[in-house]
């Protein structure tokens, strides 16, 4: 008995881990939110935690198209950036209160996604990535040109939301922990909504499109419409992430519209595990923590991040969370 023990203990602990993972999978919203609730206390400073929260949401929205529907978009920076700029411009130039301003940001991102998606859906396969990239870069140049509104190259400055002005509560975003939970409230809502969407018939259609588009069409799915809708919904989530980022940073850098920001979503979703619920947050966490640590040592962090991404594509295309799930399910 005792001889066989080590092996046995290993499988038992493996089974326990698998049990934990399946428990998390059954209560995926609670698992994500539970972790994020205590998350700022695990990190050296809150600003990093807020970044991870925002980029996790951004990668989550992106993952709807990339991971669940299986279509690679390189244009999501447009929705993140449009969300940021619309919210920022509403606050800076028109004095709109923060809550409607966030709404404006989400709507702007959704409109952008509707136009870009409408054009990109007309192409198939590999063209999709190129067309979304080109069109999002077009948004970049357009916003860049509108210097009066957007601040051009310098970005939009002065998105100062300090007092939340919620009756009965005295909350200010100057306190980093308050800011974290302010952002968390929106992320929590988005994560819950995202989970509901995935569990709906629409979520099933997405995965059907990923697995076999012609069969989905034969089953009566309106392929073009479903793709476009998924693209727009994904854009709405990314727009919310962008809107929150504008308030978090108090500025909107023009780089948030650049296609490298689209690449960030691709990298985070792939590092974490595309098509998994936890993947985008795992990916955002890994990416931003690595960036944070590497920039302490060298300015050439892109070298390491790029190489790591290439390494993952070659050897762990399932990403961190996806690989873990794969090991446990064997």
């Amino acid at each position: 008995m005792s001889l066989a023990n080590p092996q046995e203990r290993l499988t038992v602990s493996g089974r326990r881990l698998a049990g934990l993972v399946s428990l998390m999978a059954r209560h995926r919203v609670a698992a994500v939110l539970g972790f994020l609730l205590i998350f700022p206390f695990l990190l050296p400073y809150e600003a990093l935690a807020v970044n991870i929260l925002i980029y996790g949401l951004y990668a989550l929205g992106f993952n709807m198209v990339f991971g669940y529907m299986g279509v690679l978009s390189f244009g999501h920076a447009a929705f993140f950036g449009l969300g940021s700029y619309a919210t920022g411009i509403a606050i800076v130039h028109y004095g709109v209160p923060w809550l409607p301003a966030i709404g404006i940001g989400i709507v702007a991102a959704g409109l952008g996604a509707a136009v870009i998606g409408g054009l990109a859906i007309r192409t198939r396969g590999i063209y999709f990535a190129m067309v979304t990239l080109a069109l999002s870069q077009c948004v970049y140049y357009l916003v860049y040109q509108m210097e009066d509104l957007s601040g051009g190259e310098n970005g939009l400055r002065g998105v100062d939301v300090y007092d939340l002005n919620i009756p009965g509560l005295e909350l200010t975003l100057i306190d980093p922990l308050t800011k974290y939970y302010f952002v968390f409230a929106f992320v929590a809502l988005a994560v819950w909504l995202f989970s509901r969407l995935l569990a709906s018939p629409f979520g099933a259609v997405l995965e059907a499109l990923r697995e076999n588009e012609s069969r989905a069409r034969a089953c009566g799915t309106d392929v073009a419409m479903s793709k476009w809708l998924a693209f727009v919904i994904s854009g709405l989530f990314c727009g919310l992430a962008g809107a929150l980022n504008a308030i978090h940073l108090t500025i909107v850098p023009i780089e948030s519209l650049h296609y490298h920001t689209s690449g960030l979503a691709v990298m985070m979703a792939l590092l974490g595990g595309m098509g998994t619920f936890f993947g985008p947050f795992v990916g955002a966490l890994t990416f931003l923590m690595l960036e944070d640590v590497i920039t302490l040592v060298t300015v050439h962090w892109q070298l390491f991040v790029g190489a790591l991404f290439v390494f993952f594509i070659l050897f762990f295309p399932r990403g961190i969370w996806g690989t873990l799930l794969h090991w446990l399910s064997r």
Partner: protein
Amino acid sequence: MIGGYPIELLALQLFTGLALGSVFVLLAVGLSLIFGLLTVVNFAHGAFYMLGAYAGVFFIGYLGNFWLTLAVVPLAVGAVGLVVERWLVRPLYGRGIDYPLMLTFGLAYVLVEVVRILFGAEGMPFDAPDSLMGAVDIGVGYFPAYRLFVIAATAVLVLALWLFLEKTSYGLVIRAGARDGEIVRVLGIDISRVWLVVFALGTGVAGLAGVLSAPMRSVFPDMGTTVLVEAFVVTVVGGMGSLAGAVVAGLLVGVVVSMTSLFAPAMAEVSMFALMALVLLVRPQGLFGKKGLMG
């Protein structure tokens, strides 16, 4: 006079557009060639273009001769392409078209950062050779000799490439490989070596585009970033995998950009996207799409 501008100015602007378009043609030809055969969208194409410009800076300092540099750079960049195909892209065949695309995107980060470490983040000067300095009278006015040379060099290169693909037996193998790699393999041809050669060829042409445009645009590590987008626009307009499409769309985009920068400077950068959107609405497969490789 057209639109308040003298006809000579418009003609000169047309030539400027053709010179700009020539660089687009070279980029799109390389991108299209690689895609047509390997079904790999090379997101590192801009990075290879940048490598070409830096290889130009390096070799001209080393060799001291522009013409020799022009010959060596595509070979050097193509050699990097060989390594990339053999060790990075090849393991991904058969795993879905998105993987090589993402891999080359990550690779672009690495290449740009390596150049930044080796050459610094600052821009580098790169002068046209003395024999191509100055301007030439082309009938409608004086036009920079170097830009004229770029147009001519592109024409020669595209012609050579067309002859290679259409008239040589190796070109026949490449075209057959684009049609059906499986059958080519059954006929006893090592298709993976053909892929290797084509990837090197495509990246080499991108490198040549980089060194050719170095005297017209400045040399800096991020120079490939915007170029990649331009190359995509041209490929989408022309149709993927078509040599004629790459040439026509490249020149068309070049002329459209240069004409808009005359009439509405603020819209110059956006004009090519408007053109692309129009093509997508009218002819989603591109102007010359859906034909055989390089047909």
